[in-house]
């Protein structure tokens, strides 16, 4: 009964989405407010029905109803409750349902909080949202229905893949999807602007908070996924340039560019056409990511060819939306008027430079991810494009970008003073050179590039602080006045500072982890001692333990530093009975921002266990950086100007245009 209700709710949501994708457009055409307002009610009702459908699937998983294929294949009655819930999106059908739920959530948010939008713009935006929603409802109902029943229900389920039974995976996909799908709002706004043939600075003001929100979630989602891979997969890697990761990195790069170009559009009414294009591209890349991950094309081109239903369906959605929106863009973009002149050296110029590098980086990831697929399809030749390629191409793109980051906020709009900005960054430059000197002396004879990279990171962080100091007049005026000014600074300024500093923080973590990571690999017996980076790790012994749906072998290590006992670490190997699969639960010991990491391997015939121990210096900074960035985004999102300015669009836009 619950399954059928869930299924039925989804069908009703499709019906509502179809109404929402047509009626408001007719209303906009006929200037009929009642018809345009249909969009609002249908968007909210759609949210209600999709939510009902999602709750139904969660209920089925929680109650272990194995008469439903999806539950049978991905759940087990002994699985802990939390993983019963998270298992809902730990599989194809469920994750697609989560995808449309989040899409409906964003549509509902626009409907509920978009009261200050002009009626016809809101009608257009929600109609475009409904097009996307309809396509994905059809996809779920036709190819990936999570509510299918089994004629003869089995007694027990097949359990969720053990690697996915982890708290990181509970939060990571929803976060990522909130980011992915959140960009659909800027896409809908862009298409709506093209359909209406009108766009002004106020448009950017409405789009920016939504883009920012999506960006915050995507940033956190990627960081969380990376941390999950780090501690769960058992070899301490945190970024693999895997196509699935690249699929989430591409929208992030494009979205970051969009965030910056929307800023130019909002403040200066320039870069309109480009911002529209970026909005389209960012969501197109989200769709591409969904296609890559969901169609199975990554695993093998042949697997895709043998069971193409799902893949072809998403490919079709992809082509219709990307092709359609780009055609619309080519057709209508020239009608949008350009405004806002600026000199190459200016805040706008800096943001354009940022966009150039970010889009190039995005293109690099794009070509690296898709080239092997395209080559295999076209010529049958197989090549691999992996980490070494991306490391080689990415670094040259990010170095100039990072050097430019501190300059941007210090340049004035319209026409900036590069020399003046450089003077104000003097302190940051000194800090960077000091950092290079210290890092070089500390690791004398070691890597040569790493200290320079550290210097660059320090420059980015100190540059962000310099900008702030400059704004509050630190050391130039009495401290109390500076503090008062600091409190009065717009939150967006603080947001920029945190986000840019986060970039530098992450870079320090990345450089330290990759350069000065120490490692011990060996077979250990009880009472053996391993030495890593000054720490002594003694294997005390091994004990078996029974978990809810697994058995595990726990090894206990005593960690000491200079003969002083610090802590105990207990890595384990888990064996999941149902799937016969095992996972390695690495043990982590955090010391400041550095970590000790132990992961267990196989046991040899003589009772020795293979052990891999790492010391990863400052590794946590890799994730603190993105958290800082997201925090900056949040501060910026809470800036009252983002909310206050929006309701009075047209006059503001006219005033700007008149001026130029």
């Amino acid at each position: 009964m619950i399954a059928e209700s869930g299924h039925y709710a989804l069908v009703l949501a499709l019906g509502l989405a179809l109404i929402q994708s047509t009626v408001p457009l007719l209303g906009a055409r006929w200037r009929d407010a009642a018809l345009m307002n249909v969009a609002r009610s249908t968007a909210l009702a759609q949210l209600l029905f999709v939510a009902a459908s999602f709750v139904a699937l969660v209920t089925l998983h929680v109650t272990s109803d194995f008469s439903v294929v999806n539950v049978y294949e991905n759940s087990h009655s002994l699985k802990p409750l939390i993983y019963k819930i998270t298992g809902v999106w730990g599989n194809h059908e469920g994750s697609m349902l989560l995808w449309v739920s989040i899409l409906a959530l964003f549509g509902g948010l626009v409907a509920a909080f978009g009261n200050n939008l002009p009626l016809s713009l809101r009608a257009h935006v929600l109609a475009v949202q409904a097009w996307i929603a309809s396509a994905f409802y059809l996809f779920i109902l036709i190819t990936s229905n999570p509510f299918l029943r089994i004629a003869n229900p089995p007694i027990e389920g097949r359990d969720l893949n053990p690697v996915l039974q982890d708290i990181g995976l509970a939060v990571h996909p929803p976060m990522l999807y909130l980011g992915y799908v959140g960009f659909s709002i800027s896409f809908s706004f862009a298409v709506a602007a093209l359909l209406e043939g009108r766009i002004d600075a106020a448009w950017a003001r409405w789009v920016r908070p939504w883009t920012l929100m999506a960006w915050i979630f995507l940033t956190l989602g990627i960081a969380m996924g990376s941390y999950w891979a780090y501690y769960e997969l058992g070899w301490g890697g945190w970024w693999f340039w895997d196509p699935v990761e690249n699929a989430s990195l591409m929208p992030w790069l494009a979205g970051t560019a969009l965030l910056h170009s929307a800023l130019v559009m909002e403040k200066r009414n320039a870069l309109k056409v480009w911002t529209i294009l970026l909005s389209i591209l960012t969501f197109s890349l989200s769709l591409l990511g969904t296609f890559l991950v969901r169609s199975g094309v990554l695993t093998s081109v042949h697997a895709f060819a043998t069971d193409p239903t799902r893949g072809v369906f998403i490919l079709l959605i992809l082509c219709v939306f990307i092709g359609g929106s780009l055609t619309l863009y080519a057709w209508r973009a020239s009608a949008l008027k350009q405004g806002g002149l600026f000199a190459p050296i200016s805040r706008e110029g800096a943001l354009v430079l940022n966009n150039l590098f970010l889009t190039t980086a995005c293109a690099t990831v794009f070509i690296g991810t898709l080239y092997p697929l395209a080559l295999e399809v076209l010529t049958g030749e197989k090549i691999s494009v992996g980490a070494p390629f991306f490391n080689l191409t990415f670094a040259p793109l990010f170095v100039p970008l990072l050097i430019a980051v501190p300059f941007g906020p210090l340049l004035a709009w319209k026409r900036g003073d590069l020399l003046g900005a450089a003077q104000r960054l003097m302190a940051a430059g000194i800090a960077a050179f000091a950092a290079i000197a210290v890092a070089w002396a500390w690791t004398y004879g070691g890597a040569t590039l790493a200290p320079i990279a550290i210097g660059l990171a320090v420059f980015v962080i100190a540059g962000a602080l310099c900008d702030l100091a400059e704004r509050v007049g630190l050391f130039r005026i009495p401290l109390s006045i500076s503090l008062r000014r600091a409190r009065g600074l717009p939150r967006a300024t603080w947001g920029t500072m945190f986000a840019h500093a986060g970039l530098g923080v992450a870079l320090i973590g990345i450089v330290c982890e990759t350069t000065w990571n120490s490692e011990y690999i060996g077979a250990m017996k009880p009472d053996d001692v391993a030495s890593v980076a000054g720490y002594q790790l003694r294997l005390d012994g091994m004990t078996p333990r029974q978990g809810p749906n697994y058995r595990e072998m726990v090894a206990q290590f005593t960690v000491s530093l200079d003969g002083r006992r610090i802590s105990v670490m207990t890595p384990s190997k888990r064996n999941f009975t149902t799937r016969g699969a095992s996972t390695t639960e690495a043990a982590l010991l955090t010391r400041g921002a550095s970590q000790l990491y132990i992961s267990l391997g196989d046991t040899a015939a003589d009772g020795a266990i293979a052990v891999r121990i790492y010391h990863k210096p400052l590794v946590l900074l890799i994730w603190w950086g993105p958290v800082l960035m997201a925090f900056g985004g949040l501060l910026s999102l809470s800036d009252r100007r983002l909310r206050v300015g929006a309701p009075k669009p047209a006059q503001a836009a006219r005033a700007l245009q008149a001026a130029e």
Partner: protein
Amino acid sequence: MMRPSQRLAVGLLAAILVIGAAPAFAVQPDEIMADPVKEARARELSKELRCMVCQNQSIDDSEAPLARDLRLLVRERIAAGDSDGQVIDFLVARYGEFVLLKPRFNPHTLLLWLVPPLALFGGGFALWRYSRRRPNPTKVGADSDLSLTAEEEARLERLLSAESTPDRRT
């Protein structure tokens, strides 16, 4: 151990950063070479080579039996006195270009290697053209263009007074 089919299931999962992964780890204690310099070379080479039955994993990361065979082969060649280039050539001759995680520059990979620089320089060139075509406020009528009009001044005034504290640059 995970079977390839399970690894496939992981790889397909959500838009998750799942890396066809395995619990056990790559380099086993018994593989390590006695000479630390040679071992370091073997590790570096391993990072450039693909485990061909895995999803985008290097043989250094993978626990698959094939990856182990390849790691041992790399160490064998190093022990036999091969240079890094010779080891790579040997493996490419045996397994094809697919084994390289960083493809070689040849007609087939021309586009792959050229897209990043072309995007950067092409984009830069387009921007340069664009900024030249449009009137440059630093040269053309700097005063009239760059000083605010009365209307803009008034608007700026309104915006600034709406904020709690003036911020000169935004």
